């Protein structure tokens, strides 16, 4: 059984995913695992409406911003743990996360979830829930706020 040999951490730069990254980093050190940061982005739906923007107009700035943010997180993480790499993917978050984990041959996904309650929580946690449900490898979910505060 191999676990924590190669950890994938999806990050959206929000607090939950950064908390997950902290734990993943700690586990990576402990288990001397490879760490792959994954950031996914989507071209928003309004790009396809009559907003005046086209998907192509938005693609470049969004991709640039995504690449830059991921690059920063990557540098900061690699400074703490050298066996780190990063992957940028465009598409539906949960699908891209699963694909990235598969392509990396990762054995664990560590991801943050929003510690919210009620409908808000049910909606916001949906990426993590889909990943938990559909991942072939173990998924470690990390709440943004211990104790369930929103």
């Amino acid at each position, binding site marked *: *059984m*191999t*676990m*924590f040999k190669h950890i994938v951490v999806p990050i959206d730069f929000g607090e939950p995913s950064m*908390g997950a990254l*902290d*734990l993943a980093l*700690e586990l990576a050190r*402990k*288990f001397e695992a490879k760490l792959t940061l994954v950031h996914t982005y989507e071209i928003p739906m309004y790009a396809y409406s009559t907003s005046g923007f086209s998907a192509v107009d938005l693609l470049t700035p969004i991709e640039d911003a995504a690449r830059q943010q991921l690059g920063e997180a990557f540098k900061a993480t690699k400074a703490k743990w050298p066996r780190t790499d990063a992957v940028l993917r465009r598409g539906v978050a949960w699908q891209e996360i699963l694909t990235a984990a598969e392509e990396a041959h990762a054995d*664990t996904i560590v991801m943050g*979830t929003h*510690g919210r309650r009620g409908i808000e*929580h049910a909606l916001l*946690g949906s990426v*993590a*829930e889909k990943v*938990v*449900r*559909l*991942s*072939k*490898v*173990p*998924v*470690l*979910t*990390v*709440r943004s*706020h*211990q*104790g*369930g505060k929103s």
Partner: protein
Amino acid sequence: MRPIRKILVPTDFGEVASYALDRAIELAAKLDATVTVVHVYEYSLWAIDTGRASAPDMARRIKQAASEALSAAIQRRSSGGVVVSGALREGIAWSEIVEEARALDADLIVIGTHGRRSLPRALLGSVAEKVVRHAGMPVLTIHLPSEEHPAKVSGGSKKRSASHSHHEEDILAVSGAIAGGTTGAFAGPPGAAAGAVIGAGIGMAIGKALDDEDDRRKQAEAKLDREIGVVGGNLGLAQPRRAS
């Protein structure tokens, strides 16, 4: 980030839970953590007077069987240097698990889950998903290594029986869950309610492909089978998984 010192592992004595527990113990060894195994049983629905056994008697027997199965599961894993202890709770599985984790002040929950094995299950969500949603601490969800991951299957012969028993477990759990609705407040006829309990709780061990690797477990599960078999028979519940 606080270090992981206490790991809670829920079990229904099924194959996935058993697999998750073994993984948790490996992690615990590496992290220098302790493992607490929690089993949640539910006997409120069994407390139906069938004429053959009184409700308190049945409750007592279910608790006893749960306790013995838990002891066997722990005993079997007590030789590896990791401190493994047990906790027994009665009630709704996911909420008792979350409660136990809180009471224990666990740093991590490791829980087995069947994942995407069937559509109805996917729609209803599993115990593991509710635990993920409600627990305050990190939760590691683990599937059995599947057919798509042959490299990760430890024993070739176990693989086939694993997927087989999954399938059956799903059928049973889903039929029960549908009868009971999505909330876990089962309102079906006695037979359906019994099915729901089997799907959700203590009776996961019914008809389970017995594992040759450990006689103790075999005995405990057989006892569990017998305990539940009596009740199930009284309620007119066929034992679909035993038939295979």
